[in-house]
């Protein structure tokens, strides 16, 4: 499930998460999760809200304890270590600055707790302020700062402690678009400069693609895929990722035959082609094709019979998005740069794609069908009164 190309080749693992589970009462929030985070990398944990990414982060930071499995930092288990005993710092979603302390005291707090001499604190706070470009703000209070400035204070307050790992929990979500883009660039360059491992939690896929060395995509408590941004975008391993990262067109299709690397498929709207990946006959799969990779013609192309009508053309500044409705009602999105041709609204056409642009995604539906075939339904019928038919059959 999880390939982990080491970003620099010989990088040292810094956080190792092994078979970690977390339950909240009966809720299974993090499911058997394995993830290795390397030294000096920028790793994003990406997923929709409620996918367990914040819980995972809280497990690493020590605000929550995992139910089973183990988390190691530099090879050392920290299951029962309190947050203040871990060499990890966090930048919180809503900054969580101390409202009753000045910027200086906020940033100095970690060093004061470590009983660093005052003169040294002064020097290091100054350096941290320069690092986040907030010189001269020492005496201000958090309430006197803008969102972006608060963010910088929160970052300075964390990095001043020279943590092994800096965790950032959706740090930019409260900022406006423009400031967010600017902070993305700043954070990325800061990470390079400091050489600290950043674990960046976000639900914004664009942000993750722009900033990360690797992206770990979580869905419903499960780590779906962890890979480089290009890899995730070009070769999503699950339907969820294909859908979640960037825009895509998904075709639920059945395998007819495979020949010379080509898979002949059909779906509700007609025939289509994909890459051969040793499917079973009649296996149900998903074909994912990015909107910029969809091609069209007036006549059906060999192997394809996906006809549709062009419903709408939307101007988006740099691209034109065309909406095509297929014969079964499925909507297909086509993106083209403004200066290249797009399909005419109202025209009837056939869509196709090049084989290399089709990403083949396995579905679990096939496994379910296989399991269903092997189920002996007669034993169920006999024990229909019992809740667990299998167990009672054994008795």
């Amino acid at each position, binding site marked *: 499930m999880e390939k982990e190309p080491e970003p620099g080749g010989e990088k040292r693992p810094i956080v190792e998460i092994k078979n970690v589970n977390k339950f909240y009462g009966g809720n299974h929030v993090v499911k058997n999760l394995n993830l290795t985070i390397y030294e000096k990398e920028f790793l994003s944990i990406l997923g929709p809200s409620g996918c367990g990414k914040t819980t995972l982060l809280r497990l690493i930071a020590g605000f929550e304890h995992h139910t089973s499995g183990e988390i190691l930092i530099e090879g050392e288990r920290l299951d029962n270590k309190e947050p203040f005993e871990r060499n990890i*710092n966090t930048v919180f979603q809503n900054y*969580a600055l101390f409202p009753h302390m000045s910027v200086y005291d906020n940033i100095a707090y970690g060093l004061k707790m470590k009983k660093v001499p005052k003169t040294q604190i002064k020097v290091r706070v100054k350096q941290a302020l320069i690092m986040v470009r907030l010189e001269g703000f020492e005496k201000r209070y958090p*309430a006197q700062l803008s969102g972006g400035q608060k963010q910088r204070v929160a970052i300075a307050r*964390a990095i001043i402690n020279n943590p092994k790992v800096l965790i950032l929990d959706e740090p930019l979500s409260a900022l406006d678009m423009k400031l967010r883009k600017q902070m993305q660039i700043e954070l990325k360059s800061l990470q390079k400069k400091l050489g600290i491992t950043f674990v960046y939690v976000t639900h914004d896929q664009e942000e993750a693609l722009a900033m990360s060395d690797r992206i770990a995509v979580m869905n419903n408590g499960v780590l779906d895929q962890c890979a480089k941004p290009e890899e995730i975008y070009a070769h999503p391993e699950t339907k969820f990722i294909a859908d979640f990262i960037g825009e895509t067109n998904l075709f639920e299709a059945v395998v007819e035959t495979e020949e010379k690397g080509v898979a002949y498929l059909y779906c509700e709207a007609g025939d289509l082609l994909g890459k051969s990946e040793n499917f079973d006959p009649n296996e149900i799969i998903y074909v994912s094709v990015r909107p910029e990779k969809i091609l069209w013609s007036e006549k059906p192309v060999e192997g394809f019979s996906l006809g549709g009508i062009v419903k709408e053309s939307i101007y988006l500044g740099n691209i034109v998005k065309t909406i095509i409705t297929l014969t079964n009602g499925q909507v297909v999105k086509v993106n083209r740069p403004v200066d290249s041709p797009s399909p005419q609204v109202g025209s009837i056409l056939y869509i196709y794609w090049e084989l290399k642009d089709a990403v083949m995604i396995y579905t679990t539906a096939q496994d379910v069908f296989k399991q269903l075939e092997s189920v002996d339904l007669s034993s169920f019928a006999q024990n229909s009164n019992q809740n667990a038919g299998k167990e009672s059959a054994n008795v």
Partner: protein
Amino acid sequence: MKKLSSRIFSGIVFAFLYAPIAIVIIFSFNSSRRNIVFENFTFHWYKEMIGNDALLESFANTVIVASFSTLLAVIIGTLAAVAMFRYKFKGKGVIDALLYIPVVIPEVVLGISLLSIFAISNIPLGRISLIIAHTTFSIPFVVFTVRARLSGYDRAIEEAAMDLGANRFQVLTGITIPIILPGIISGAALAFTLSIDDFIISFFTTGVSSITFPLKIMESVRSGIRPDVYALSSIIMLITFIIVIISQAGSYRSSKKKK
């Protein structure tokens, strides 16, 4: 025109509020024993007051009872407010509603109930019973003010402090308490003032040896108020006035800090 009428109106309001107080202060300097006409200016009653041991003792009693009951109410009330903010537990809603009862219940009823409790549990009436009684009715006010302060409190702040290396005790003393301190202070101020001028509950729960200032005044009303009571009242007012100015200056400063 509009300006003038609004000035007159606010003048009336202020006169309504402060005229009775002004009269007390003025008559504390009156050489006549009767407080109907102002004769001559004198400090006589202030001297008299210093010689009036019973009066001063009642005042000392009041301050002692108010201080201890405020301290107890602040400790219990703050802990209750923090617990109710932080934890979800069974019966929280009930406790929440019950907190209002000492506030809305007629003081006479509360006074009688406390008196019977002291009688049943053999607690002698005196300073101790007074302190317990005053603590009882002060707690809800502390809980309310501290909770109001906590309502905007983000628990991530405590997590941030722990994340930066503070242990639980350091979080409490360095983060939580300083942040809710304004709520604690205003709760304490409320509790203190409520205790100082409480008459009804004190009337039921006090003993012979622990007459408080309001009780003393009430007692002296029967035989006619002597101007030395005015003198002491004026001094109390002066102290209150100074406290209000200090606290206002403090909140002005902290609101400036926020801007």
